[in-house]
C-alpha cells in the first residue's frame, strides 16, 4: 500500500497561492510574476495529480479486481455529534482520481492560456489568485471524503465562480451575471443542504465510504418511510440532486450559465465548461450506489432532467449568435447527456454501463469543451466581438485556432476516431438498453449538436468575408500551445480504456463498440454537419427563411423559451414586490406601528385624563370622597 498522504498538498498548495496572490499579490510581485507563480504552483499540482493517478490506477488501487476507496487523509474539522462530524480529507477512488486529472490538466492549460489572454489586464494577480481559489475549491470538492466537505467546497466553487464571472466588476452586465449565477446556484444548494440534512438524519453519517457502501446499513436507512408516495431516502436524494441541477446548469436552474459567459473566456473554459459545471454529474456519480440501490425513483428524475436539458439546450443553441452562449448551451446539453447516462445506469455489471459512459464523456467533454472555449477566446481576442455575425472567413487569419477548433467540433459531433465518438456512443448504448424514449432524445441531441457546432464553425471560419477594422492575427504562443495540447487530448483520450478504470462498482466492465448504435450515431452526426454546411458554408438565405417559416418556434428558442423572463417575473415581481416589500411595510407599519401605538395611546390617555387635575380644590375633594366611598363599597360589599 502506497502512502497517499502527500495528496493533501494538492489542496494546500493552491490555497496558499490564493492567499499569497490575493493578500500580497499587488504589492509584492509584478503582475507577470504572480501569473507565473500561479501557473507554476498549478504545474506542481498537476504533476502530483498525474503521479497519484498513475499510482492509483496502475500500481496499488486495485485489490481483488476492484478499485478501492482510499482515504488518504482525514482530519476532523468540526464535530457536530459523536457520529456526525465534518472531516477534511482526501478520498481517492476512480472517479476522484479521474477528476483530479481532468481538473489539473484543464486548469493548467487555462493558466498558461491566461498568461497570454489576460496580459495587461488590470487585476492580473487578482485573476490568478481567484483561479487558485477555484482550483483549490474544485479539487477539494472532488477529493472530499464526506458529503459535508463536498458541500463546503461546493459553496467555495460557487463563490470563486461568482468572483471570476464578476471579474470585470465595473461592467454592469458582468456584475448582474455573477450575482445571478451565485443566487441561482445558491438556491439549488439549499436543496443540496436539505438533502444532506435529511440524509444525515437517517443515516447518522456524512462519510462517503459508509454512505455508499452497497452492502452497508446506511444505504438502507429511510427507504421505507414514505412521504407523498416516495421514500425519505428518495426525497433526500432528489434534494441532493437539486444541488447538482443548479451547479450543472440543468433545467430549470440553467439560466445562470449563458450569462456567466460575461466572465473572461479562460474562466468560461475552466469553470463553466470543463470542471465546475460537471460537479453535479460528479455528485450523482459519487452518491451513485444510493441512487441506484435505495432511490431508483430519484435516479429516474436524474435521467429525465438530464435528457430534457440536453434537448432543450441543443434547440436553443441552434438559434444563438453569441459564440460563447452557443458553447454554453452546448455545455448544458452535453452535461444533460451525462446526467441522462447516469440516470439510465444501475449499480454493477452490464447495467452499470451508463455510469461508465457518463464518466467517460465527462472526461472527453472536459478536453474538447475547454478546447472550444479557449479557441473561442482566441477568436474573440482577435476580433473583439462575441457575435458570429461579426465574424466570417477567419480561417485565413487564425490557422492554428482554425484547425484546433475544427478538431473540437468534429469531436463533439461524434465523428470517429475523435474521443467523443467513443464516449457518446457508450451513452447512446446505455440509453438504448434501458429506455428507448431517452435513447431517442439523446439521438436527436447528437444530431442537433453536430448541426449547431458546425453552424458555429462555418459562420466563424467560412461564410461571408467580413471586413475587420484591424486585421485579426493569430494569438501568442501562450495561447496556442494549450490549444494544440488540448486538441491532441481530444484526439486520443477516446482510446483510454475507461471500462477498466472507472465503473459503477469499480470492477472491470466488459463492453465494446456496438455497431448497431455506433453507425447511426455517426450518420446523424454527419447529417447535422451536412445541413450546417448547406446552410452556413456560404452566405445563404436558408437560415432566414427557415426562421420565418418556424416563426414562433424560432422566436421561442431564440429567447431561450422565456425562462429568464419567468425567473425575472418570479424574483422581481413576486418575491421582491409581493413578499419582501410587503414584509418591510408590515414591519414598519404593523409591528413597529403597534409599538409606536402603545406609546401614542399612553400619551393620549395621559392627555385625556388631565381633566382630573383641574386645579379646583373642591373637585379634588370630590375625587377624594368618591375614592373613599368606592373603596368602602368595594371592600365591604364586593370583595370582602
Amino acid at each position: 500500500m502506497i502512502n497517499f498522504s502527500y495528496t493533501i498538498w494538492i489542496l494546500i498548495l493552491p490555497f496558499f497561492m490564493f492567499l499569497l496572490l490575493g493578500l500580497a499579490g499587488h504589492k509584492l510581485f509584478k503582475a507577470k510574476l504572480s501569473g507565473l507563480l500561479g501557473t507554476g504552483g498549478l504545474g506542481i499540482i498537476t504533476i502530483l495529480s498525474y503521479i497519484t493517478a498513475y499510482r492509483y490506477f496502475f500500481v496499488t488501487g486495485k485489490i481483488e479486481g476492484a478499485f478501492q476507496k482510499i482515504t488518504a487523509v482525514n482530519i476532523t474539522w468540526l464535530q457536530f455529534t459523536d457520529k456526525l462530524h465534518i472531516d477534511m480529507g482526501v478520498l481517492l477512488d476512480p472517479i476522484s482520481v479521474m477528476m483530479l486529472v481532468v481538473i489539473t490538466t484543464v486548469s493548467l492549460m487555462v493558466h498558461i492560456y491566461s498568461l497570454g489572454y489576460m496580459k495587461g489586464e488590470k487585476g492580473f494577480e487578482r485573476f490568478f489568485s481567484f483561479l487558485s481559489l477555484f482550483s483549490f475549491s474544485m479539487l477539494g470538492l472532488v477529493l472530499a471524503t464526506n458529503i459535508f466537505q463536498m458541500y463546503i467546497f461546493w459553496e467555495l466553487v460557487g463563490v470563486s465562480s461568482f468572483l471570476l464571472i464578476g471579474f470585470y466588476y465595473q461592467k454592469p452586465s458582468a456584475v448582474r451575471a455573477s450575482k445571478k449565477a451565485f443566487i441561482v446556484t445558491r438556491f439549488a444548494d439549499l436543496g443540496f443542504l436539505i438533502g444532506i440534512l435529511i440524509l444525515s438524519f437517517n443515516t447518522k453519517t456524512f462519510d462517503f465510504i459508509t454512505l455508499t457502501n452497497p452492502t452497508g446499513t446506511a444505504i438502507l436507512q429511510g427507504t421505507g418511510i414514505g412521504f407523498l408516495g416516495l421514500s425519505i431516502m428518495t426525497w433526500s436524494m432528489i434534494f441532493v440532486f437539486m444541488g447538482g441541477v443548479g451547479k450543472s446548469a440543468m433545467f430549470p436552474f440553467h439560466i445562470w450559465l449563458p450569462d456567466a459567459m460575461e466572465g473572461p473566456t479562460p474562466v468560461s473554459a475552466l469553470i463553466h465548461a470543463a470542471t465546475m459545471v460537471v460537479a453535479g454529474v460528479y455528485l450523482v456519480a459519487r452518491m451513485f450506489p444510493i441512487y441506484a440501490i435505495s432511490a431508483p425513483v430519484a435516479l429516474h428524475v436524474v435521467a429525465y432532467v438530464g435528457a430534457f436539458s440536453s434537448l432543450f439546450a441543443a434547440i436553443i443553441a441552434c438559434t444563438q449568435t453569441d459564440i460563447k452562449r452557443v458553447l454554453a448551451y452546448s455545455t448544458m446539453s452535453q452535461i444533460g447527456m451525462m446526467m441522462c447516462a447516469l440516470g439510465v445506469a444501475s449499480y454493477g455489471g452490464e447495467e452499470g454501463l451508463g455510469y461508465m459512459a457518463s464518466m467517460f464523456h465527462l472526461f472527453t467533454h472536459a478536453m474538447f469543451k475547454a478546447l472550444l472555449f479557449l479557441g473561442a477566446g482566441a477568436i474573440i481576442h482577435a476580433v473583439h466581438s462575441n457575435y458570429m455575425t461579426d465574424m466570417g472567413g477567419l480561417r485565413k487569419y487564425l490557422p492554428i485556432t482554425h484547425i484546433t477548433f475544427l478538431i473540437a467540433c468534429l469531436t463533439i459531433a461524434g465523428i470517429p476516431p475523435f474521443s467523443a465518438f467513443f464516449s457518446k456512443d457508450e451513452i447512446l448504448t446505455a440509453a438504448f438498453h434501458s429506455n428507448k424514449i431517452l435513447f431517442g432524445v439523446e439521438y436527436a441531441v447528437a444530431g442537433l449538436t453536430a448541426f449547431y457546432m458546425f453552424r458555429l464553425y462555418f459562420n466563424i471560419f467560412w461564410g461571408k468575408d467580413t471586413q475587420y477594422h484591424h486585421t485579426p492575427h493569430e494569438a501568442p504562443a501562450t495561447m496556442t500551445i494549450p490549444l494544440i495540447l488540448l486538441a491532441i487530448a481530444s484526439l486520443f483520450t477516446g482510446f483510454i480504456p475507461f471500462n477498466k478504470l472507472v465503473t459503477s462498482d469499480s470492477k472491470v466492465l466488459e463492453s465494446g463498440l456496438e455497431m448497431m448504435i455506433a453507425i447511426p450515431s455517426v450518420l446523424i452526426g454527419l447529417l447535422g454537419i451536412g445541413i450546417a454546411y448547406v446552410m452556413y458554408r456560404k452566405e445563404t438565405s436558408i437560415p432566414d427563411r427557415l426562421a420565418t417559416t418556424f416563426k414562433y418556434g424560432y422566436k421561442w428558442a431564440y429567447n431561450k423559451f422565456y425562462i429568464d423572463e419567468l425567473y425575472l417575473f418570479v424574483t422581481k415581481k413576486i418575491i421582491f414586490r409581493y413578499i419582501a416589500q410587503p414584509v418591510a411595510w408590515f414591519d414598519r407599519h404593523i409591528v413597529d406601528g403597534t409599538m409606536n401605538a402603545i406609546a401614542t395611546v399612553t400619551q393620549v390617555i395621559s392627555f385625556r385624563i388631565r381633566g382630573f387635575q383641574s386645579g379646583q380644590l373642591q373637585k379634588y375633594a370630590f375625587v377624594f370622597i368618591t375614592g373613599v366611598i368606592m373603596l368602602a363599597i368595594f371592600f365591604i360589599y364586593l370583595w370582602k
Partner: protein
Amino acid sequence: MDILSLFVVIPVLTITAILFLKDTRQVRLVSAFGMGLQLLMAALLVFLYLTARHAGNSDEMLFIRDYLWFKSLNIHYAVGVDGISVAMIALTSLVVFAGIFASWEVEFLRKEFFISLILLATGVFGFFISIDLFTMFLFYELAVIPMYLLIGIWGSGPKEYSAMKLTIMLMGGSALLLVGLLGIYFNSSPDATKLTFNILEISKVVIPLPAQRIFFPLTFLGFGVLGALFPFHTWSPDGHASAPTAVSMLHAGVLMKLGGYGAFRVAIFLMPEAAHELSWIFIILTSISVVYGAFGAIAQKDLKYINAYSSVSHCGLVLFAVLMMNQTAMNGAIIQMISHGLMTALFFALIGMLYGRTHTRLINEMGGLMKVIPFLSVCYVIAGLASLGLPGLSGFVAEMTIFVGAFQHHELFYRIVTIMAVSSIVITAVYILRVIAILLLGPTTNEHFEHLPDAKWFEKISVITLIGAVAAIGLVPFWLSTMIGTSLHPIINKILALNPF
C-alpha cells in the same frame, strides 16, 4: 483580585482615568490602551481556561469567586466562566477593541463618548462573568442605559426617537425578565429555606413545573427582546440606523448576544421542562424572525437597515437553535452568536467608514466603490460572504452546526421548521449580493466619489482585527466548537435527564 473581576475593574479604571484627563486627545489613547489590555486579558483567560481544562479540571465553571453581598437575600457577587462565557468574553473584547478604533474620529464630546462606550462594555463583561442572577441582571441593565446617551447624543437621523424606542423596548424586556428572575429566585429551594440567585445552585434543583410555565416565557421573552425576537425586534432597525458606528458595532455585535446567552443560560438551563413543553411557540416566533428578517432586509435601501434586519434574522437563528435543546444546535447557537457578533460588528464598522466618506447610507446613491476604495470594499465583500455563510468564514460554521443540530430533533415538526429556517440562507444571499452589486461593483456613479480616501490606519486595525477573527473561526472551528461543546455537556445532561427524549 481574581482574573474575572478584572474584566469589570479594567474598564472601570479606564473610565476613571478618562475622567481625570484634561486633554481630550489622550482620551482615545487611554481607551485604546484599556481595551487593548482587556483584549490581552481575554486572550490570557482563554489560555488559562484551556490549560485548566487540559489539566483535567472538569468543574462546570472555572475561576469561581463568590463574595456574599446582601446576606439576608443571599445575593452574591459571584463570578465564574465556562467555555461559553469565555468565548463570549473574547468576542466582546474583540468587538470593543475594534469599536474604539472605529470611533477614533469622534470629535463631539469625545470624553463622554468613550466613557459611555466603555461603560456599556463594562455591563456586557459583567454580564458574561456573572453566575449570580442578581448581578447578571444588574449588569444587563447597566449595559442598556449608556445606549440611550450614545445614540441620542452621537447618533444621526431621528436619533432621539430611536434612542428612546430602543431604551424603552429593551427595558420592557428587562421588565419581563425581572419578574421571571424573581420567580426563579422564590422557587430556587424546595422548602424555601435557602433561596439563592446562584445559577449553579438553582440548576441543581427542579423548579416546580407550574412555576416554570409562568416564568419560562417571561424570562425567555425578556431576553428575547434583546435578542430581537419577532415581534419585539423593531427597536433594532431604528436603533442601529441612528446609532454611531461603534455603538452599532457593540450593540449588534455584543449587546444583542446578551439576549441569546441569557435565554440559554437562564431560561433554558434553569427551566428545561417548561422550555421543552413550550418551545414550539417560541420556535415559531424565532423561525418567523429568521425568515422575516431576511425578507425585510431585501426591501431596504439604507445600509444600516439592511444590516439591522439581517441581524434580526441571524439572532433569530440563535434563539431558534437554543430552543432546539440539543448539544449540536446549542453549540451552533453559541458559535452563531460569536460569528454574528464579529460579522455584524465588521459590517457596521465598514458602513460607518463608508458613511464617513460618502455621507450617505442609501445604497442607490452609491455605486462602484470597489474601484475607489478597494480596501474597504474588499472587506465589505468579505463581511458579506461571511454573512451569507461562505465556508471558510465563521458564518458557515455557525449556521451549519445549527442546521445539522436542529435537524437531529426527534420530532418532525422541528425538522420541518428547520427546513424553513434553512431557506433563509438563500434570501440572505439575495440581499447581501444585491448590496454588494449596487454598492461596490459597477461603474462609479457619482463623480464626488472618485477621490475618496481609502482606509486610514486606525480603520484598518479595527477591520483587520474583526476579519482575522471571522476567518480564524471559519478556518479552524474545531477548538472553539470543542471548547463550547464540552461546556455544554452539563447543561445538556441536565436537559436529557429531565426530558427523556
